[in-house]
Structure formats: structure tokens, C-alpha cells
């Protein structure tokens, strides 16, 4: 499934009666948030980092942080998806800072093509194409990388992306279109080179 329904915006519930019910409600709220948003967070992080094991680590970090601050979350301020993506974005920034500030697309990071009868050459071409696409993504300004990853990875609409990145919705539309065009131009150049 590529895109889920609009993320629900419920915050941590506070049942009026009894500590037991309050704890249960809080836990249920968190579990619902996890089930709804975890795949989207993972896809965004994975899209942005291009490395499944790093994506798992960062996604876990995001939800652990969300758990620690769950009581401070206010649904009036942001939807759960927006809140989590903002945490994820900071975690990704920290990750790249720790890793030496440069986003490197390594050969082994390119995901392997899954095919029933893969022709080796075709698989290598596909792998190289994926790697090239990742290089094109890494060549964009950080905010454009986020827009592309939130759109194509997390499947967010422009309004949600705008709220996550705290820019206007029209700005997201403009940047998205231009970023795709820039990536396309860069990718075309690579295709042209390989065909010669």
C-alpha cells in the first residue's frame, strides 16, 4: 500500500475515571499511533538515508523519543504524523552529523532488486539506477531532500509536508516540482553518459 488514509490526529487520551483506565487509554493511544504512523516514519527515514538498517535504528529512536515526550504532545498543535516526522527529521540530521556530515551513497546501500528470475545484468543495471537516483537525491538541498522523501517515502500530501517543515503549502508545491525536475535533469545526464 503506497498511501494510507489521512493520519488521525488524536492525542494521548486522559480518561476521567481512575488511574488504571488512564494508563490503559494512554497506552492504547500510543499503540494506535505506532500502528498508524510507524510504517510512514520508517519509509521516510529509509528514503532519506537509503539504508534499511540505519532506517530501523532511527525509526526506533524516533518512537522511543516520542514515548518519552508523549504526555507533552498536543493534538491541537500538530497531527501525530507531523509531530513524529519532525522528530524523525531531527534524528536524521543528527545521524548525518554523527556520520561526518556527508551523505554518502555506497554501492552496498543500493537495495537489491527482487525478481523471480533475475538476469544478472538487468539486476546490476537496476541497482546502478537506484544508486544513481539516490545520488541525485543526495545532490539536492536538505529541505528538498526532505520534501521528496516525505512525499515519495512517507506519502504525505503537501499540507502535511508544509506543517512538518513549517513552510507554506505553495512553497512545498513549487519546491517539489523543481526538485523533481532537477533530479530528472541530473538523472538524464547519467543515462546519457551510460548509453554512449
Amino acid at each position, binding site marked *: *500500500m*503506497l*498511501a494510507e488514509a489521512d493520519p488521525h490526529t488524536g492525542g494521548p487520551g486522559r480518561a476521567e*475515571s*481512575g*488511574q*488504571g*483506565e*488512564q*494508563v490503559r487509554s*494512554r*497506552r492504547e493511544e*500510543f*499503540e494506535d499511533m*505506532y*500502528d498508524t504512523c*510507524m*510504517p510512514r516514519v*520508517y*519509509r521516510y527515514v*529509509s*528514503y532519506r538515508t*537509503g539504508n*534499511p538498517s540505519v*532506517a*530501523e535504528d532511527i*525509526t*526506533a529512536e524516533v*518512537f*522511543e523519543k516520542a*514515548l*518519552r515526550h508523549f504526555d507533552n504532545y498536543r493534538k491541537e498543535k500538530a497531527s501525530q504524523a507531523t509531530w513524529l516526522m519532525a522528530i524523525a527529521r531531527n534524528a536524521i540530521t543528527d545521524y548525518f552529523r554523527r556520520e561526518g556530515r556527508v551523505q554518502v551513497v555506497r554501492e552496498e546501500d543500493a*537495495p537489491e532488486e527482487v525478481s523471480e528470475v533475475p538476469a544478472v545484468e538487468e539486476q546490476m543495471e537496476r541497482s546502478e539506477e*537506484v544508486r544513481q*537516483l*539516490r545520488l541525485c*537525491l543526495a545532490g539536492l538541498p536538505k529541505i528538498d531532500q526532505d520534501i*521528496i522523501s516525505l*512525499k*515519495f*517515502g512517507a*506519502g504525505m*500530501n*503537501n499540507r502535511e509536508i508544509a506543517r512538518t517543515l513549517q513552510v507554506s503549502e505553495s512553497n*512545498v*508545491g*513549487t519546491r*517539489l*516540482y523543481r526538485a*523533481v*525536475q532537477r*533530479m*530528472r535533469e541530473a*538523472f538524464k545526464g547519467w543515462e546519457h553518459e551510460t548509453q554512449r
Partner: protein
Amino acid sequence: MRPRDENERQFAADIDRLLRGEESLSVQDDADYAEALQFAQRLMQLRDEPTEQFAGKLRNRLVVKLAEQDARQEKSVPWFVRLFSRPSLRLAVVSTFMVVAAVGLLWRADLLAPLSPRADEAGPGIMTTPDPSAPPETEERTAAPDNDMLTMEGVPPAAVPDTTLMVVGHVPPHAAYSEPMSITFEFRNEGTEPVSLAFFPPAVHIRDAATGDIVYSFAPGERSHAIRPMEVRSYRIDWDQQDLQGSQVQPGRYMIDVAVAEQTVADERWRTEMMTVATFSIETVNSGD
């Protein structure tokens, strides 16, 4: 060629449609735009899904942390607030207060006075002495299965909400200081449909009953296990009374929590229930020994 603004708006709308698995609505009269859409479809292929194993493991870990957090929060609440926040205890306290108040009112209104001289021949009143023929409470408690393994007082077999699964913890009610001890869990399916358990054996936490702090945790396993109708599955763990830092825990009362991860039939989602299934005491060190 369409104006750029229109292209940008249309492009975002078309991408959202493609992401939902629908066709784009744009008329493909602009070759450049059509090519951009094709390229966008390539970008969608970079998307990666989380594995089920990762999703389940992380979920389980978070639920355990959530329980720890709740325990810490509960600890910081004053005892009288905690007392009143538990529905069963609150009911007991309020009921007792109302009975005492009612007796007080009757007493003040002298309505109880005529009964006093005939108290010896009266039937059971509000305040009665225990029936001597009734078995002592301690006998009832010692009538436990599995030799001297007992479920702890006040903790009946715990039912996993919305399922037919019952969980019972068996542990000696009093353990000698620094003596290794065994805790046995029984998972009993009392329904007519199988129940699926994930992350078996389950995560187990031993908590200080006074503070609510987790003193030791047993990590969950990674197996899945289906329990057939009326089947009982047992699981035993051994604990050397050492805390997470490897030190002997203090004498006192402790609670045993189990994280049961089961799959509901209705929505096929995994969920984890954290339940207190037993308590026990570690005896004070005998300095004379």
C-alpha cells in the same frame, strides 16, 4: 505549455493520486510534464517497507518501556491518590465509609439501641465475628497446585482483555533471602478458538511492590506460539534474586508482571498486555545464621 504555477499544483495532485495507486488525471499534452510524472514514478520505487519482524520487535519493546514509564509515574503519585485512583479500592473505601456513616447515623438516632440487649440471639448483623466453622484463610491459600507453588494472594488468574486467555503465575509466597527461586507461568486458553502468542516466552518484569520500580527484567523470546482451546502451556523462569546491576535485591514484597503479546482474531493486529500475575516476599536476612 501550461503556466508553471498550474503545473506545480497539478503535479502535486497527480503525485498524490499515483501514490494512492490511482491514475493521474492530467491530459498528457505537455511532453515535459508527462516526462516529469514518469520520473516521479521511478522515485516511488525507492520506497522501502519495514519488515514485520522489526515492526513487532519495536512495538514490544515500546510497550515494555511504556509500562516502565507508567510504573515510575504511579510511584510519584502520593499513596492516598493512588488508593483512590484504583476503581476497586476506591469502591471498597467509599463503601466502608458509607456503611460506617450509616451505622453512626443509626446509632445517633438510637435506632440500634433496642437491638443491643438481644445481640446474642440476633442473626448476622453488620458487625459479626467470623464463623468458627469456616476454614481459615491461610488454609485456602495454601491449597495451591504444584506442590508449594502458589499464586499470590490478591492476584487471581489474570484474563487477557478481549480474549479467552488466562495467565497464572505460580511462585512461593515467601522466598528466603538470596536463595534462587523459580517462577512458573501457565497460559490457559479457556475458549473455543486458538489464541496466538507472539514473542514467546514473554517479557517478565519483577517490580518492587513498595516503589513500583522494576528490579529485574527477563527479555522476551522471538517465537510465536498458538494455544489450542483448553490447552495449558507452562513456562518456568529461574531468578537468582539479583537486580539489573547484578546486586542482591533487598528483602521485601515484589510483584511479577508479564507482557503477553497476542493476536486478536478480529483485526489480526498484534497487541501486548502487561499484567501483574503474582506477588511474593523475600524474607529479611536472619542475622543469627
